[in-house]
């Protein structure tokens, strides 16, 4: 097995730690709307940043560590299912639709849409009804707005920070 470079490992761990902190701070915010699942998803900035600066495996690592630790620290089984399904789908879509850094926000929007679609599917399975899909338009609006916000945040960070964290 190829050993991971300490520099990359440290950066991945740091991003995962920041992601967990951001996720916790966001969880303290009151709900934005009466529709469940509408939130900014700021922790995805860190996954996105890891994807563009480090790579696919590192982005998957940041997401996995954040979702697992968040479930251990704060959430129960129910919220773990939601965040795991949403996070996994979001990651898969962002890996497939990885556009150039200038269009990072577009990748982020696609990821956010996949995230909300995944959460809605989990909700439909848990509730054993398709009625929850009435929230699809609400969640699409939320995904486009939140995805643009987090994507632009990661994009600005990428163009300003990446030159300092490059290896070598």
């Amino acid at each position: 097995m190829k050993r991971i470079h300490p520099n990359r490992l440290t950066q991945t761990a740091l991003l995962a730690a920041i992601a967990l902190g951001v996720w916790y701070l966001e969880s303290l915010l009151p709900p934005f709307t009466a529709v469940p699942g509408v939130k900014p998803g700021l922790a995805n900035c860190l996954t996105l940043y890891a994807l563009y600066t480090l790579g696919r495996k590192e982005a998957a690592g940041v997401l996995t560590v954040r979702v697992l630790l968040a479930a251990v620290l704060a959430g129960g089984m129910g919220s773990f299912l939601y965040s795991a399904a949403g996070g996994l789908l979001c990651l898969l879509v962002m890996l497939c639709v990885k556009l150039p850094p200038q269009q990072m926000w577009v990748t982020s929007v696609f990821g956010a849409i996949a995230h909300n679609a995944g959460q809605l599917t989990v909700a439909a399975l848990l509730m054993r009804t398709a009625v929850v899909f009435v929230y699809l338009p609400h969640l699409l609006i939320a995904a486009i707005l939140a995805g643009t916000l987090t994507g632009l945040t990661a994009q600005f960070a990428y163009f300003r920070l990446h030159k300092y964290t490059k290896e070598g």
Partner: protein
Amino acid sequence: MKRSTVIYIIVFAFMLIGCGILVLASDHNGSGATATVYLDGEIVAVVDLNTVTETWTLAVGGNTVEFSPGHVRMLDACCPDGLCVRQGYASVGKPVICLPNRVMLVISGPADTGVDAVAG
């Protein structure tokens, strides 16, 4: 700006407008219809809201459902955020859904059964 960026912006803008229209269109007035209460995907109660004359409540899976003439809503919920309570009265196309307790209030079209209030 790259051409593809412009296309993405236009596509997302159209999706926002389309979804906005869907959200607004789904907001009907729900009076004069049948309310069905679900718990874990199973029907707990079916109430013809036309026949409700005075307000009464029903405890379902940690939540309290309130029936009043022509309306139904989640009066109280034991979960911390209480989003379903904030959703207000249910209407056709706008059900009230409590994800943590898996309780759902669905309004369907005008009742044709003539049954007053059935709980089963």
